[in-house]
Structures are given as C-alpha cells and as structure tokens.
C-alpha cells in the first residue's frame, strides 16, 4: 500500500522557502534572528557565532580549514543551510574562489541582541489590573481543551456541541488534505493522511495546522512574513503572563482571535482593557520537532489479553481509539475496549499502518505501565504486525515478460540494462526469459531496437 506520510515540516524549512526580499524583511526582527540561530545544526551555529563580528567577505577555503577531513559532509550541510536561509551569501568571482558574506541585517540584529538581550515589544501587565489570572495548570487544561475541541471539529463537525469561531472557509482549508467527500449527501470521510494525522503527537499536529494557516493567510490579506514574525515573537513571550491587547496592531488582533480557537492564547477582559495570555502551545512553536521534552501524560493500558483500558474523558481520544479498536463501554473516567482482528482490518483498510498503531500505543502508555519494558506487551505488537502482513501476502507488479532472444549475448546485455535501471524482476538464463517492470518498458524497447541494428 502506498505510504503517504504527512511530514510536519519544520517551521524553519518554511521560513527558508520564503522569497529573498521577505526573508530580509524578517531579519529586521531580532527575535527571528535568535529563533533561526536556535534552529541551525550545531556546526552552523558555531560558524555564525565565529563570523558574527567579522565584516567583509570570508573565503570559503578558510571555513573549510576549520573542519577536520572527516567532517566534510557536516560542513557542507551547515554551509548549505546557511546559504539557504540567506544568512550567508555566496559570491564566486572569476579568478578568485568562492567567498561568503554575512547578511548585514541579520548580523547587526544578532549583535544587538547579544549585547542588549532580547526586549519584547510589550511588557507583561501589572498584577493589580490582571486580577483573574489563571494558574499554569488551568492554562494548560484550557489549551488542551481548546486544541482537542478544534481537532474534533476538524474531523467530525456533526458530533460537536459548541460552534467554533473559525470561519468555515478556514476549516475547509485545514480539512483539505485530511477529509474527502465523495458527494454532498454523505458526510466527509477521513482520508489515509487524515488517519495518520490523528495518530501523530500534538506538536507535529500543531505544526501541520500552523503551516496550512500560514500558506493560506495571503488570501486573507495578511502578509506571510508578518505572520511568521508575529508567531515567532509570540513564542518568545512568557507563558502565563498577560499582555495588553492594545499593543497589537489590527492585523495581529485578528490573528490572535484565530489563535484562541486553536488554544495557543487565552483572552481575558478586565474593566478597561483586554489582554491575552500565551499558553504552552504557543511557546512550543519555536522548538524543533525532535525536541520532545514536554511529554504529556499517557492514558492507555494494553493487556496481554488484547484488552485496552484508556483513562481519559476526552471525546477525541475515544474517536482515535475507535479507529483501530472495538470500544466496548465508556465509564465516567475510563474507556474500555479490545483490539480485535476485525477492528484492525478496518484500520488497515483505511490506510493506517501497524507501525503507527504500535507507536501511538507506546507513546500514550499510562504512567503505571510506561516504565515497564516493553510498555505495550510483545504479543500484542507482534500480533498487530502479523495481521498486517496477512493482508499483504501477495505482491503484484505490472510488468513485461521478454523471451525468444536471438542470442545469449543479447539476453545478457538486456539483463544488465534492466538491472541498471533497477527494473529487473526475474530472469532465467537457461530458457533465456526475463521479466522487467512495466515502468521501464519504453526504455527496453529502445534498447532492443538498437540491439537489432
């Protein structure tokens, strides 16, 4: 089955793909410079810091001398990344060799940032005004609630009680890759990528949504660079502190309203002013994907008799578990289900792989079983994989069979030709027969025609 993976591309990849002028405008914000510095591979960070106070172009040869011979590939990766982000610009003059010039805006801002420290454009409000400030736990629960609510809305609008403020056109954009609708009478069904999206962890999901939001904001009249710089700025705010709404521009205020629905900020109204409070989801925006320091608490216990107990009250969790297990009953704090062959077959037919199910169960294992090795019993994981293999017992490849070769040399030559293209599936030199993939048939025909002459 084709493996369609939703890769939540790094925020930085998206920044790197902006056109040159927008990127230069972004670098006027010193927080973005710091965020970019944080996201670089370690060697690139070192280069940036070493070149920070050097004015004028630096020859490529010098940079190469900083690395030992076996670090050449890492050096290349670092340099490519820096050129891609336009931190370094490469110029090759005719007789001399390549030189790199540090981006002046970036350089200036980073120097200022290092010397003066980062000063946010707004300060937290004094506590005598912000009386009903929520505690950090309340803020966390609020963020998780909003996010789950948004996800539920995303996958199944029929089941949700409250209505959301996100306009239906925005919802449609988010749903684009994840849901498909055969005709207008049937409710939209989740696609293969939709299922995989649900089983990803929260950070990866958040990025996918933010990425879609950014790529579509142009149509709403918000400039991509402004949006990215505002989001990055937001990620440097202190979680749990209130910031006055009147320090934001109008465009930023609309963005904040959308972010409330996603659970990134919380809005509160005082007597005269309103303020917003960034949550954990907002401050996680500038952290890279690989950083999984904030592991939320797991809730699933899987037993060796294939029964599953999920200590959760969330509807979203129930929906996700329903994807691959048979839910038997729901108690006030517990969802009881069983992993059966039929439920797994249903999941496999919908495009979920056994590996995704196993990793979902392992990542969300209840703390009671999480420290046990393995957190999900081996017989359950093995059986899931066996059932998956059972569905794929036969592999079929469209191909062509070539026989009646005039001579052994032609046969050998054709075999080698097919092997070079990676299309040789089977050969029998005694009977001089060859099976090759359908994709290279035209090239094979060309080759054989040339051989005849």
């Amino acid at each position, binding site marked *: 089955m084709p493996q369609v993976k939703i890769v939540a591309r790094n925020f930085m990849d998206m920044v790197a793909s902006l056109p040159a002028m927008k990127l230069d405008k972004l670098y006027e914000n010193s927080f973005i410079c710091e965020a970019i510095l944080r996201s670089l591979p370690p060697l690139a960070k070192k280069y940036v810091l070493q070149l920070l106070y050097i004015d004028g172009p630096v020859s490529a040869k010098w940079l190469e001398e900083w690395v030992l011979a076996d670090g050449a590939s890492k050096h290349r990766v670092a340099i490519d990344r820096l050129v891609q982000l336009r931190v370094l610009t490469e110029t090759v003059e005719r007789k001399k060799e390549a030189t790199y010039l540090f981006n002046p805006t970036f350089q200036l801002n980073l120097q200022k940032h290092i010397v003066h420290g980062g000063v946010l454009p707004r300060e937290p409000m004094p506590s005598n005004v912000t009386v009903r400030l929520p505690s950090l736990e309340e803020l966390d629960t609020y963020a998780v609630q909003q996010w789950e609510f948004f996800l539920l809305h995303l996958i199944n609008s029929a089941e949700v009680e409250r209505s959301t403020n996100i306009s239906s056109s925005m919802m449609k954009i988010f749903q684009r890759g994840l849901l498909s609708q055969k005709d207008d009478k049937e409710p939209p069904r989740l696609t293969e990528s939709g299922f995989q999206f649900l089983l990803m962890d929260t950070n990866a999901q958040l990025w996918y949504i933010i990425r879609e939001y950014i790529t579509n904001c142009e149509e709403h009249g918000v400039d991509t660079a402004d949006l990215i710089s505002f989001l990055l700025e937001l990620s440097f705010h202190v979680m749990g502190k209130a910031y006055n709404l009147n320090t934001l521009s109008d465009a930023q205020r609309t963005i904040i309203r959308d972010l409330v629905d996603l659970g990134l900020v919380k809005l509160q109204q005082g007597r005269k002013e309103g303020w917003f409070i960034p949550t954990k989801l907002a401050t996680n925006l500038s952290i890279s994907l690989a950083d999984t320091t904030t592991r939320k608490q797991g809730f699933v216990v899987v037993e060796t008799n294939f029964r599953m107990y999920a200590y959760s009250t969330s509807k979203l969790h129930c929906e996700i578990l329903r994807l691959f297990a048979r839910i038997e009953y729901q108690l006030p704090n517990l969802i009881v289900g069983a992993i059966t*062959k039929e439920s797994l077959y249903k999941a496999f037919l919908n495009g979920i792989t056994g590996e995704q199910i196993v990793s979902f169960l392992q990542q969300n294992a209840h703390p009671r079983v999480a420290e046990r090795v393995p957190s999900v019993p081996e017989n359950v994981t093995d059986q899931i994989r066996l059932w998956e293999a*059972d569905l794929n*017992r*036969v*592999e*079929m*490849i*469209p*191909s*062509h*069979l*070539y*026989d*009646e*070769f*005039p001579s052994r040399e*032609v046969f050998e030559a*054709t075999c080698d030709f097919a092997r070079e293209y990676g299309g040789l*599936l*089977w050969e*029998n030199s005694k009977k001089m*027969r060859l*099976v090759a993939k*359908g994709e290279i*048939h035209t090239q*094979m*025909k060309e080759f*054989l025609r040339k051989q*005849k002459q």
Partner: protein
Amino acid sequence: MVNATKGLYISCDIPMAQFIINMNASLPQSQKFIFHVLDNTHLFVRPEVASMIKAAIATFREQNTYEKPS
C-alpha cells in the same frame, strides 16, 4: 525477434502460489490466466485478474477466520 508480453508479476509465499495455481486449474480453458509459473514463489499472469485474485484470497482468508457464534 524478442517478444514482449504484458502482464502481472506475482511474488508471494509457496502456499499462496499453490492457491493461485489451483484457482487457475479450476477455471475453464478460455479463462485461464497464468502465462507461466516462473518458480515456486513467482508467477506471471494476465494483467486483468489482479482484483479477482485479491477477492479470492480475501474469501479464503475469511473462511479460515474463527467467528464466535453469538
């Protein structure tokens, strides 16, 4: 002159190969779909029969599944 036949290359385990060969043998001559049996785990068949083979394997699999009488 080299002859090229278009078809489907099937790669599976030995029991499945035997199952497909058996299915082929039970069909009347006009509907037989195997061009060649390449070896005991590979076959070369007509391209149209892919869905028919998949459906037959699915029924075979369901026949081997235990359903608890409710």
